[in-house]
């Protein structure tokens, strides 16, 4: 195994992979989208599938070419874009964004397969938007220039807006509009904050630049403006996460979007918020962001979100809405891990981001398949489906267990690390969050029971088809990676460790002493004991 990796790494190095891969990942979907609009409509699906497979195949090289021992930015390129105004095309990857890019590109072929039959009208436009969305997502995660980042961040709204608005279900108009307004409202102040930062840093250093590294290394110059700037950044990211009181757009958008839209929302869009905190909001303003009061606010909101969303999930009659609310709950764990500020908790947060993407994405695919067959998502309309669709039931049960965080599946690894890493700093919050996992088991298993196992009262369910080969091709990679990540997470953890360590070392000087020194000592002992 290690040998194959080595050979591949040499091969990739010999073709200069590190120099062109990020640009190709960014441009390929865009070129694909344009090509799609120019080609005949009957080609749309195959064309997109080829582009998506190519994109994923190329992105897969990142897994091997990535140097796990390096916590810094890799694959870095800087090209002047608007010189004289300090704006450049500066892209790169580190252990945090690596998996986000892999997740985004890996989902791509599955999304095309998943929408193979369910999208009947205006196929060309649909797939072109899907490709454009992918380009913007990759852009968000690889941008290391704040102007570039903001552009991608906002550009993402357009394809998502149309995907929900044109191909969504009944209440799509409301959901699409709400989604755009919430996100735009969050991010417009971030623009002011970005410009203000550039100006403040520029005034003290003499260099006006939107470059991430430049701003990061000179963030001390922000001085008394830091709280305001952090608030603007945090608002933009909190809406995207979504953190508890800003989450109301999410159930609507998730529920009304077409399957591929929901999957993309769950898999990538929600991660943009937490990624933003990890990459920008906290590193830029660590002293304020990690101060006692602000930490308390964010941890409280995260735990409140975990509990609230779990409780709300329980009473949802709509299966998709139930899963949507469970996302709020999962992302609460990520926020907790980020504010835990230990290597374990940050790695755990990245793992939760990753595994939530896979398991929730899979759940949305499954719900989409149910909807394609029965044109309903109401839990009450189903029942006893395991008898007619055993394969689907199996996939659903495994995925539900992964989402709950059953040991041996991917959900457990991340949540465990988050809880472990954050306990020293926030024992009460961690205790509460851990308890709520019981609720997660409750609402998901209850839903599984009502959909797949209760007596089959609705005669329409009797003739339902099981998954076909195409759908299996969508589900299998997802279920496989759930098991893989659950049993053998080491390759994933190895790649995130250096970046997490670098992040934690960066913010450590700003951490207030933990509330419970003894507990911190215990956690530290656990940390030391781990290899």
């Amino acid at each position, binding site marked *: 195994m290690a040998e194959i990796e080595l050979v591949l790494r040499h091969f990739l190095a010999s073709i200069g992979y590190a120099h062109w891969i990020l640009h190709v990942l960014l441009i390929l979907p865009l070129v694909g989208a344009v090509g799609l609009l120019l080609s005949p409509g009957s080609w749309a699906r195959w064309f997109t599938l080829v582009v998506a497979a190519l994109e994923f195949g190329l992105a897969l090289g990142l897994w091997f070419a990535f140097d796990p021992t390096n916590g810094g930015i890799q694959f870095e390129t800087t090209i002047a*874009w*608007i*010189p*004289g*105004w300090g704006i450049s095309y500066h892209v790169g990857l580190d252990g945090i964004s690596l998996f986000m890019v892999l997740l985004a590109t890996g989902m791509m072929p599955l999304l095309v397969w998943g929408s193979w039959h369910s999208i009947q009208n205006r196929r060309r436009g649909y797939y072109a938007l899907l490709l454009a969305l992918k380009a913007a997502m990759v852009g968000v995660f690889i941008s290391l220039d704040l*102007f570039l980042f*903001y*552009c*991608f*961040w*906002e*550009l993402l709204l*357009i394809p998502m807006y*149309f995907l929900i*608005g*044109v191909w969504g279900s009944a209440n*799509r*108009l409301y959901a*699409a*509009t709400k989604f*755009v*307004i919430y996100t*735009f*409202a969050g991010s*417009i*102040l971030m*623009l*002011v904050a970005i*410009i*203000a930062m*550039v*100006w403040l840093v520029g005034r003290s250093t003499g260099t006006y630049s939107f470059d991430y590294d430049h701003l990061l290394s000179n963030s001390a110059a922000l001085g008394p403006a830091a709280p305001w700037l952090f608030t603007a950044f945090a608002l933009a990211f909190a809406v995207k996460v979504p953190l508890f009181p800003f989450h109301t757009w999410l159930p609507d958008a998730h529920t009304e979007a077409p399957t591929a839209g929901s999957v993309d929302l769950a898999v990538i869009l929600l991660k943009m918020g937490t990624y933003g905190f990890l990459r920008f909001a906290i590193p830029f303003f660590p002293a304020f962001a990690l101060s006692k009061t602000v930490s308390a606010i964010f941890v409280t909101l995260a735990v409140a979100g975990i509990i609230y969303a779990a409780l709300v999930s329980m009473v949802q009659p709509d299966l998709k809405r139930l899963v949507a609310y469970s996302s709020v709950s999962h992302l609460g764990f990520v926020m907790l891990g980020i504010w835990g500020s230990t290597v374990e908790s940050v790695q755990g947060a990245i793992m939760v981001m990753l595994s939530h993407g896979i398991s929730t994405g899979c759940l949305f695919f499954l719900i989409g398949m149910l909807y394609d067959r029965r044109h309903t998502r109401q839990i009450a309309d189903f029942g006893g489906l395991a008898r007619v669709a055993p394969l689907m039931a199996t996939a659903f049960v495994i995925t539900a267990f992964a989402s709950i965080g059953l040991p041996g599946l991917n959900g457990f690894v991340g949540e465990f690390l988050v809880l472990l890493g954050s306990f020293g700093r926030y024992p009460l919050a961690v205790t509460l969050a851990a308890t709520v996992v019981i609720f997660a088991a409750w609402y998901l298993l209850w839903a599984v029971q009502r959909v797949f196992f209760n007596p089959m009262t609705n005669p329409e369910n009797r003739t339902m088809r099981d998954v076909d080969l195409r759908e299996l091709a969508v589900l299998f990679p997802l279920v496989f990676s759930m098991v893989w990540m659950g049993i053998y997470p080491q390759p994933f953890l190895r790649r995130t460790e250096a970046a997490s360590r670098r992040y934690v070392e960066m913010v450590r000087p700003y951490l207030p002493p933990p509330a419970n020194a003894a507990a911190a000592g215990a956690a530290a002992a656990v940390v030391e004991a781990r290899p």
Partner: protein
Amino acid sequence: MNALDTTTPIGATLALLPELLLTGWSLVVLLVVAWRHEGERDSRFAGWLSFAGILLSLAAVLGMWHGDWHSEGIAHMVALDSFRYASATLILLLAGASTLLSLRYLGRQRLLAPEYYPLILFATIGMLVMAAATDLILIFLGLEVMSVAVYVLSGFDRYRRSSAEAALKYFLIGAFASSFLLYGIALIWGATGQTNLSLIAAQLAGGAPTMASLGLGLLLIGFGFKVSAVPFHMWAPDVYDGAPTPVTGFMATGVKAAAFVALVRVLDQGFIAQAHQWQPVIGVLAVATILVGNITALAQESLKRMLAYSSVAHAGYLLVAAWPGTAFGSGAVLFYLAAYCVTTLASFGILAAIEHVGSRTVLIDDLEGLFSKRPWGATSLAVCLLSLLGFPGTFGFVGKWYIISSVLREGSWILPVAVAVGSLISIGYYLPVITAMTFKPERTIDAHRQVAFSRAGKAIVAMAVLLILLFGVWPTALLNSAVRSARTLAPQAVVTEVP
């Protein structure tokens, strides 16, 4: 080599070359339409003739710009700097585009009358003079030439009551504004004995007497009317709504551009030492304009009125850009003017194509399903609206970013936040238009059948959309050019004693 002494007759003539060329040409057009004004053919001929004149004048401006013509010593009456050339280029391009947009429209809406194109040319001459003038009297002259022509143009649709109402309202309020301006000029003259901006600046360098401050205040009120800043904006929606659509496009862009470049020149060249006095006024006007313009636009059902209120809101953003009084800020005014004008003109061009014969109110609901029937038109309008909204990747975004940068540089926090909040509110009225066009099905089978783009209209809209996207992604050259041009605005040192 290319230095002109504007005190000599030859120098002054050469300095006014673009304006003089256009004046001569417009007289020719006037003669031609006096002979030939029978049908649509003749009207179109006059249109193309005017367009040729505009191109001629544009060539003169570009030649002067390229040849770097500048004045010896201070500019008497007429400026010879890049700021003037840049603004004149913009104004002439707008006039040319408006002319082309009118070609078919006049015939379709039965507005054929010989005087239309000469009036457009006269208004353009006025705008050019405003952009060039370094003397308050000349600014006033340019303003009047422009305004009188536009009063007539806005009432051009003489069969409609609302058009007549627009013209009368515009005329009365415009006359009112002119008198404010004139009285301001008189007070400033009384305080300094000068009307030339550079000489005024020299006089006021040590501090302004109350009379001069009062004059400046009146001047600001006069300009406030012309750029439709709140609370002097009441006329704008009615006038924009009542005027024929290409004229509205011309008014919303050209008139605003001319008024803004003149305002910026007055503030930066003549009263820069009094910045602490006018900055609070401009700031308050800007915030009020942004908020009122955006909030009122939310309530509009007619597309044209919505665009009218949005243009009021954009005047607010431009005022924010005028607030710093630095080269950077004035560059932002130029840049945002270009972004705003290109986008707004294209929007009105599309609206003109959508309007039905006879009934001229296009409600936002009427656009439902436009995308499925007219994908290119709907996409173009969507791009324009996103640019007005300030979405990344468009011209408007770079403009807003530039404005926010220029103001933050001077340490103001309230104005950038006001721009951000204004943009946020504006999503509430731009987005429903896009929603209606793309998400909703058309109401009747033959909806949008009457949508008719002329070939020239198509070309203008397509060009504008391309520009919006091009400058949204590669703005470097234009940004640098805007700053360079604005830098020439700095008050000129007065060497010789005033004669």
